[in-house]
């Protein structure tokens, strides 16, 4: 049932891709920039959908489960302040440059602004690498959510799972409904289950007997028995194929439509999920009371879970939106600069609507789920545990909608970076038609997506931690965006120094984190986030090198900073 609802939703997205492809003008401008015709509401929806990904839904729930309510302050309320500032100070101005000089990608803007091919060639692998990590959070999240919301899709009857249970507990009472699936084989001393079983059935089975031997056998049974769910790898592949399909059919216009649809669905369904889970837990007051009485009650505050310096220095993480290449491309789709107004004002409340229910579910989960539950699985487990199959499918589709609304922009952006900044510029300038260039971009996207699926399959990490490292990299590059828009004296040498410093320090700290704690939150002395140091160093490199080298050509400065009376 759950899988059927999710499949229906995926078919709807495929149809949307076909439909937008039919009315698409099939020019590069429409495929990559939706003909720069996106108005206020759709711009808000696309920018919101692009930034609220698996990180916001699955990452926030899992991280709150482990570190408590402070996670909202770390990311959501900081982002409400900083994201809007970036859209206000950078986004609208970048849109104006893009419209004036016909930019399609972020790298083409920086190449032109600093007149440097070296800078563009250095930025390309860094941007693709960071977007790949961002993609990975979505791909892993999609695999996990499909796996945890589709349990018992396949009954797998005839497949037996046996665990040791020497003697039948005296008080064991297996209800009639379970007798054809669950039995105790007295001769060999085993508890035997026929077919698949969803993790949410565990509390039901535990009630059949109060003996400790029974509890131990049930725990073991759930570890060994198949869940009958869509496999993790298949969920990742299915999601990527659907997103690739509607992107390939309709480009950024399809992504904008899909994001609008997906945001409405994910916010609506998120609200339903929140209400259903809350109701099933006995109401919000009861759910909070359960947590307050549990050993995990410290999740209701921050002491011992998050340090004050970490809380403060998380401020720098949302600066990453200034350098997201996929967001940059969405900025360029706006019909006019004033289209940004609604986004600037409404963004913090949109973040609140997505994050608050997820943080509350993660907080309540700490009171009912066992310590050590994998953080990426917390949301899926809570959904399937507290809702029926129909709602599980509906909620699963809603979470998937949020994840896919981020993935589509990332896929399209990687393709356009390759097409515009490598193929058109260095490989096939004036030799390939627009269709051939788009085709090459698609091939590149498929390769990058395959790499991310492969990494997600072989080495799944915490979605939250992956996201934070990815944002650290982008945030460390943000001085480049501010200087390009506001600092006339910045030059290509300074820009190059900024990027090199950010990349080198990011790699250094990531390596240290991998060595010490498996890419999990890694803090400097005093609880300072590494982004603080990397950002300070990249800013210093930009300023010092720019001032020590010759100023940019006055004609170049005049292009980007026209005198007020000439504007």
């Amino acid at each position, binding site marked *: 049932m759950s899988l059927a609802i999710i499949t229906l939703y995926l078919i709807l997205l495929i149809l949307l891709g076909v439909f937008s492809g039919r009315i698409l003008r099939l020019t590069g401008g429409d495929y990559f920039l939706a003909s720069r015709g*996106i*108005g*206020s*509401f*759709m711009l808000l929806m696309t920018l919101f959908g692009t930034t609220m990904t698996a990180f916001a839904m699955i990452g926030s729930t899992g991280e709150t489960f482990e570190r408590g*309510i*402070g996670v*909202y*302050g770390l990311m*959501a*309320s*900081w982002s*409400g*302040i900083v994201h*809007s*500032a970036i859209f*206000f100070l950078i986004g*609208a*101005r970048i*849109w*104006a*440059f*893009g*419209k*004036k000089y016909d930019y399609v990608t972020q790298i083409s803007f920086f190449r032109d602004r600093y007149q440097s091919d070296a800078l563009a060639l250095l930025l390309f692998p860094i941007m693709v690498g960071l977007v790949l990590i961002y993609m990975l959070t979505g791909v892993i999240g999609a695999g996990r959510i499909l796996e945890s919301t589709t349990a018992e899709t396949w009954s797998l009857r005839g497949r037996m799972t046996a665990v040791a249970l020497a003697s039948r507990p005296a008080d064991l009472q297996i209800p009639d409904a379970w007798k054809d699936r669950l039995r105790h084989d007295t001769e060999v001393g085993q508890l035997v289950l026929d077919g698949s079983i969803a993790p949410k059935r565990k509390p039901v089975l535990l009630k059949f007997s109060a003996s400790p031997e029974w509890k131990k056998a049930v725990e073991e049974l759930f570890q060994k028995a198949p869940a009958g769910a869509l496999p993790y790898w298949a969920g990742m592949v299915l999601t990527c194929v659907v997103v690739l399909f509607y992107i390939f059919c309709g480009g950024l216009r399809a992504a904008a439509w899909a994001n609008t649809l997906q945001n409405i669905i994910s916010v609506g369904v998120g609200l339903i999920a929140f209400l259903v889970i809350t109701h099933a837990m006995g*109401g*919000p007051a009861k*759910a*909070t009371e359960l947590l*307050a009485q549990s050993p995990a*009650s410290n999740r*209701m*505050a*921050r*002491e011992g879970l998050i340090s*004050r310096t970490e*809380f*403060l220095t998380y*401020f720098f993480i949302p600066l990453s939106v200034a350098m997201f290449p996929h967001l940059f491309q969405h900025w360029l789709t706006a*019909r*006019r*600069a*004033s*289209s940004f*107004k*609604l986004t*600037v*004002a*409404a*963004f*913090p*409340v949109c*973040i*609140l609507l997505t994050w*608050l229910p997820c*943080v*509350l579910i993660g*907080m309540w989960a700490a009171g009912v789920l066992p310590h050590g539950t994998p953080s990426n699985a917390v949301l899926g487990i809570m959904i399937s545990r507290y809702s029926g199959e129909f709602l599980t499918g509906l909620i699963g589709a809603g979470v998937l909608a949020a994840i896919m609304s981020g993935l589509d922009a990332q896929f399209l952006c990687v393709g356009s970076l390759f097409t515009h900044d490598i193929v058109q510029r260095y490989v096939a300038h004036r030799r390939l038609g627009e269709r051939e260039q788009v085709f090459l971009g698609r091939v590149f996207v498929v390769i990058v997506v395959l790499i991310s699926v492969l990494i997600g399959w072989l080495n799944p990490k915490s979605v939250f931690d992956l996201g934070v490292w990815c944002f650290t990299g982008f945030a460390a590059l943000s001085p480049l965006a501010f200087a390009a828009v506001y600092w006339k004296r910045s030059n290509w040498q300074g820009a190059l120094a900024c990027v090199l410093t950010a990349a080198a320090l990011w790699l250094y700290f990531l390596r240290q984190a991998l060595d010490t704690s498996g890419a999990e939150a890694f803090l400097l002395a005093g609880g300072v986030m590494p982004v603080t140091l990397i950002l300070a160093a990249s800013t210093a490199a930009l300023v010092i090198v720019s001032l020590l080298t010759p100023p940019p050509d006055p004609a170049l400065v005049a292009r980007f900073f*026209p005198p007020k009376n000439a*504007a």
Partner: protein
Amino acid sequence: MKWIVALLVVLLIVLHQDFWWWDDRRIVLSFLPIGLAWHAGISVAASVVWWLAVKTWWPAFLDQEADPACPPPQKAPSDKNSGGETT
């Protein structure tokens, strides 16, 4: 007014560091830990502050700078029209 908006942004950043609720597990509205309620309030306040910024500080010249065919920016009363654009 611009300076008031700038001060409000700084105030938001300061209020975000709510060390006074750091280890406070009090519940408001019968289910919401006070630290979380405070930060939800920060999000709402951020929307109000950025709405004020858009109303008072918006670089209205950008549309014309990007496309000279665009009509020049007008004074405050007509600015309401550009803000009301829909798809």
